[in-house]
């Protein structure tokens, strides 16, 4: 039987990209809640640095999932506020399994998290991209077929971690989903097959770091 996990998920929402991230991350929150875990859902304005630092300092969290904008040194919350920044507070993720669905955070921040005792890290060393048809689907982003392949594949990292898989397994499972989607798009008349180069981009730049078992 899977042990109960303490899971923190950040889901800012203030413009198109975070709007899509927010809604597709709802599925992660649902999976986490259904699994009988202790779930802390920091959505919208609650995705602040103050809250994140407070939760990380006061609670022993097993899995921490960030959704939002990012760059090589930081990951952001509501209105672009930096939540975790290299050289400032990455030490707070010591002992945690971390997934950052954010641009480029795997380049520097992810490495620093691991140096400071993070258990494992999955993220992206280049910008995370996705297509959307925001004009038609802004109000129903979960039905947007342009966005779906990007979020189904990247959500698999979070789903796997929430289900107690290791970061390596989560990374591998996600890559399988990418390959299945690409295979399907290549061999169909799907109107969204133009997304394949960008799916490949995300898959190629997804990184996974972990501590060797001692």
């Amino acid at each position, binding site marked *: 039987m899977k042990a109960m996990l303490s899971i923190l998920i950040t889901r800012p929402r203030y*413009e*198109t*990209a975070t709007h*899509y991230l927010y809604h597709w991350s709802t599925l992660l929150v649902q999976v986490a809640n259904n699994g009988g875990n202790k779930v802390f859902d920091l959505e919208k304005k609650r995705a602040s640095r103050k809250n994140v630092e407070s939760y990380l300092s006061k609670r022993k969290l097993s899995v921490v999932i960030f959704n939002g*904008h*990012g*760059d090589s040194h930081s990951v952001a919350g509501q209105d672009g506020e930096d939540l975790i920044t290299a050289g400032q507070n990455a030490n707070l993720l010591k002992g945690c399994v971390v997934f950052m669905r*954010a*641009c*480029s955070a795997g380049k520097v921040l992810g490495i620093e998290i691991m140096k400071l005792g993070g258990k494992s890290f999955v993220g992206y060393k*280049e*910008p*995370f*991209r*996705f*297509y*959307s*048809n*925001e*004009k*038609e689907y802004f109000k129903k982003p979960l039905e947007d077929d*342009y966005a779906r392949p990007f979020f189904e594949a990247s959500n698999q990292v979070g789903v796997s971690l929430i289900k107690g898989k290791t970061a390596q397994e989560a990374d591998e499972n996600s890559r399988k989903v990418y*390959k*299945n989607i*690409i*295979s*399907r798009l*290549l*061999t*169909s008349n799907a*109107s969204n097959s*133009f997304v*394949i*180069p*960008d799916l*490949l*981009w995300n898959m*190629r730049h997804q990184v996974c770091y972990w501590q060797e078992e001692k």
Partner: protein
Amino acid sequence: MTDQKEVDTEIINLVVARLKTIPPDAHLSVGGDETKTMNSEDLIVEVKKQSEIGKQIIESQLFFLRSLRDLPIESNA
């Protein structure tokens, strides 16, 4: 040098031709210092300018074309 420039132009033309097949209602969210959503026309401008985003788009399109041989294809499709 001239050959190199010619190849570059050919590559840009190839990538632009591919980007023209993207439906006009599709917008790509691209991160970076200033996050933007861009339609195919915007992407073509970036590719022609060879901006940082444009170079990344060129790289990803070329990677896709070069890896077509190795990409997974469902046998029963």
